[in-house]
């Protein structure tokens, strides 16, 4: 089992590549979501229709699902090995100066995964036609969903969790790639911080605006 997916270093590399790919995808996803803020449903519906029908996007979707699966499966394998590596825990532990969220990546990841299931049920499966959507268009469907307070809260909490995951994940991926430099690593960390604040904030602002102002 240990060797099946390659060495520990290889596994980390694959996982970091998948993670960075997901990070890039989130920007695309956010850009489309921002159309929701327009009072005109057309731009968003057109974008959603494009995403549902374009054959190139279909290929990309398969790649994207692969990215998620690889990131999750590799992540879980690495984590299980890490738990096995310390069968007996310490009685006293002291929090050293470390990347704080690093210690909780698996739990943060699992919460993101739960959110993803919900998200697929609400949107993606509807788009694929696997689940019956009872709305004329996606724009209205989103607006109706975000008028439900519970859904708004789940959505917001999930993005806070995602921000934590990315705060460690973004810079961690570069260290995994072997990039650690006196000058550039602080820049990478700064970009990671900005990304992990701006992107989740961007996703969050949409349901907030819909709930309170539309």
């Amino acid at each position, binding site marked *: 089992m240990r060797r099946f997916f390659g060495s520990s270093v290889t596994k980390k590399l694959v996982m970091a590549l998948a993670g960075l790919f997901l990070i890039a995808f989130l920007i695309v996803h956010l850009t489309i979501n921002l159309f929701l803020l327009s009072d005109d449903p057309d731009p968003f519906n057109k974008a959603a229709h494009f995403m549902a029908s374009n054959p190139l996007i279909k290929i990309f979707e398969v790649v994207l699902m692969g990215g998620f699966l690889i990131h999750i499966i590799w992540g879980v394998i690495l984590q299980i090995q890490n738990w096995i590596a310390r069968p007996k825990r310490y009685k006293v532990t002291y929090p050293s100066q470390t990347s704080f969220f690093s210690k909780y990546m698996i739990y943060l990841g699992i919460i993101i995964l739960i959110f993803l299931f919900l998200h697929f049920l609400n949107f993606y499966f509807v788009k694929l036609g696997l689940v019956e959507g009872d709305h004329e268009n996606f724009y209205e469907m989103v607006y109706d969903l975000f008028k439900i307070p519970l859904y708004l809260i789940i959505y917001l909490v999930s993005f806070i969790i995602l921000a934590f995951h990315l705060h*460690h994940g973004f810079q961690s991926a570069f260290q995994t790639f072997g990039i650690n430099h006196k000058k550039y690593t602080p820049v990478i960390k700064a970009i990671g911080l900005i990304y992990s604040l701006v992107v989740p904030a961007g996703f969050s602002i949409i349901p907030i605006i819909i709930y309170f102002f539309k």
Partner: protein
Amino acid sequence: MNIKLKIWRQKNAESKGAFVKYDFDGVSPEMSFLEMLDALNKKLIEEGDEPVAFDHDCREGICGTCGMYINGRPHGSVQGITTCHLSMRKFKNRATIYVEPWRAKPFPVIKDLIVDRSAFDKIMTAGGFISTNVGSAPDAHAIPVVKEKADIAFDSTICIGCGACVAACKNASAMLFLSAKVSQYALLPQGRVEAKERVQAMVLKMDELGFGNCTNTGACEAECPKNISLSNIARMNREFYKAKIT
């Protein structure tokens, strides 16, 4: 001064082990942590008890044997020193001090605070050497080495292999140790010759021995008594990829 010690006592590798409390009065602030343990052992022997087994050798911070987990930190609370350099002055009177052995699957407890760290030796025999017979010390400047590289190589050679990185890591990963050893060769011309085989063989051995995987958490760097840098791990990753693709 008086301290309340809670020390992990374990008869041998098979037995279960437990913390034993010692209310110890015979401590002076001038003592090092190991001298304090010596004094405790003297008392235990006089009372007919079994002394606490702990590893130590040089007592000057260079051999790397004296590792123990003190109040949740490898080598105690002072950054950049080993347990043998830790002064009792750093503890408050009447402090409770938990002393535990390193905890990691590849470092099984032999007795009390002593763990078997031969897993590190196995990693070294897998590739932590150069195969040429170098004879006696060569003339200085016979092989030119850039000063900056020599300095970084030196910074990684000062790893004493104490295992604090493994002990501190939440995953019991040996990446900091390994990367220091890979770096000390990778940066110098003599080490470049076998660089590819070395990094692959050492990583393979590390995985095989059951160490955890790196999550770039940084506890190892924070707790290393020799301040080995995380940039070594990045270098080792680079070396590993280079070896794989070329």
